[in-house]
């Protein structure tokens, strides 16, 4: 137990079993794990700060809330409701994930290399150690990841893991699309110079 808590990284068998337990536990207790929707919810909360009419109470909507934005208004205003009431399961779940990452990293007995905390070695070998370059590319990566995930209706957690766990066709399609592009991109982008 002590070894599990303080290890920097688990071996693949422990890793796989713990991932499997996480996904089953969530669906047995409440519902399958999903993350990317919460980026929309946080956007909505920020939008609502600047434009108060982003989500409004609406007795006619299935959720009791509606929005002038077509995306936030879809499925009976489900997203609009979660923006109006952020103390809901999925949003708290994602905040708790951040806390879990914090504690797991703090408990690790080996402290990470400072340079590695900004850019992985594979990046520095190819693109150097400029923080601006790394952060700009990570920003663009984040943009693509969340735009793509929202277009797909889910991400690695919701589609690939939770989806394939339930044998969803959409999970298999998402995984195929993701790996078909990610593998050649990573190979080309990070290939060794001759």
């Amino acid at each position: 137990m002590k070894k599990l808590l303080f290890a920097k990284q688990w071996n693949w068998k422990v890793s796989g079993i713990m991932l499997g337990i996480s996904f089953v536990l969530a669906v047995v207790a409440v519902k399958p794990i999903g993350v990317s929707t919460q980026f929309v919810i946080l956007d909505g909360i920020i939008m609502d700060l600047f434009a108060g009419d982003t989500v409004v109470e609406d007795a006619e909507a299935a959720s009791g809330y509606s929005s002038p934005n077509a995306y936030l208004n879809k499925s009976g205003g489900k997203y609009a409701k979660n923006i109006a009431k952020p103390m809901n399961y999925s949003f708290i779940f994602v905040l708790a994930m951040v806390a879990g990452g914090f504690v797991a990293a703090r408990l690790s007995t080996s402290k990470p290399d400072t340079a590695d905390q900004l850019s992985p070695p594979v990046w520095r070998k190819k693109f150097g150690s400029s923080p601006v370059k790394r952060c700009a590319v990570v920003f663009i990566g984040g943009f693509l990841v969340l735009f793509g995930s929202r277009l797909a209706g889910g991400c690695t957690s919701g589609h690939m893991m939770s989806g394939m766990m339930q044998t969803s066709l959409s999970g298999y399609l998402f995984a195929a699309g993701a790996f078909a592009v990610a593998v050649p991109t990573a190979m080309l982008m990070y290939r060794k110079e001759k």
Partner: protein
Amino acid sequence: MELIFAILIGFFFGFVLQKVGAANPQKIIDMLRLKDFHLMKAIFTGIGLSSLLLFTFLALGWADVGHLSVKSAYVGVIIGGALMGLGWAISGFCPGTGLVAAGALRKDAPFFILGGLLGAFIFTLLYGALKATALFTTLGGKVTLAETGSEKYSALLPTFPALALAGALGILFMAIAWFLPNEPVHSARSLDDTIVSSGQ
């Protein structure tokens, strides 16, 4: 009660993602370059085990079929998956692992989250214009391979016993995890060694 589950299971999942190495972009990029199969073995094991357990629990009546949530299959799932794959490869993060990495105080992770918030925002604005396009043409809708027992979702292979089918897929995934190379692939020599030793 739900919120207590959210805190406990969310915390556990974030903890696991960090310890698995999934919030470390080096591990993600090396998996995608097919150099280090640690994460791929963990992911295949995770999917396989969770699928086997879930369908066992459904068959025994220990899991509420109403808790399932099957997402729709449409053209945008593949295109969106491809875009996410592009961003995943260049940054080394996906939505969940980017958040966990920020929790672990990685210095690049907040930029991933900011980019992600902008990407999700632009999609939110564009959805109204995109929803009538071919991107949302259905590819079967909310369907699964194995029969879940839920009236909301239809099965593509309803004649097979659900547990046998999902269980077989689960075991197949775990077998793939088992047979993927263990050590990081550094050189052609290690590949040769594998071929020689498996040939004996």
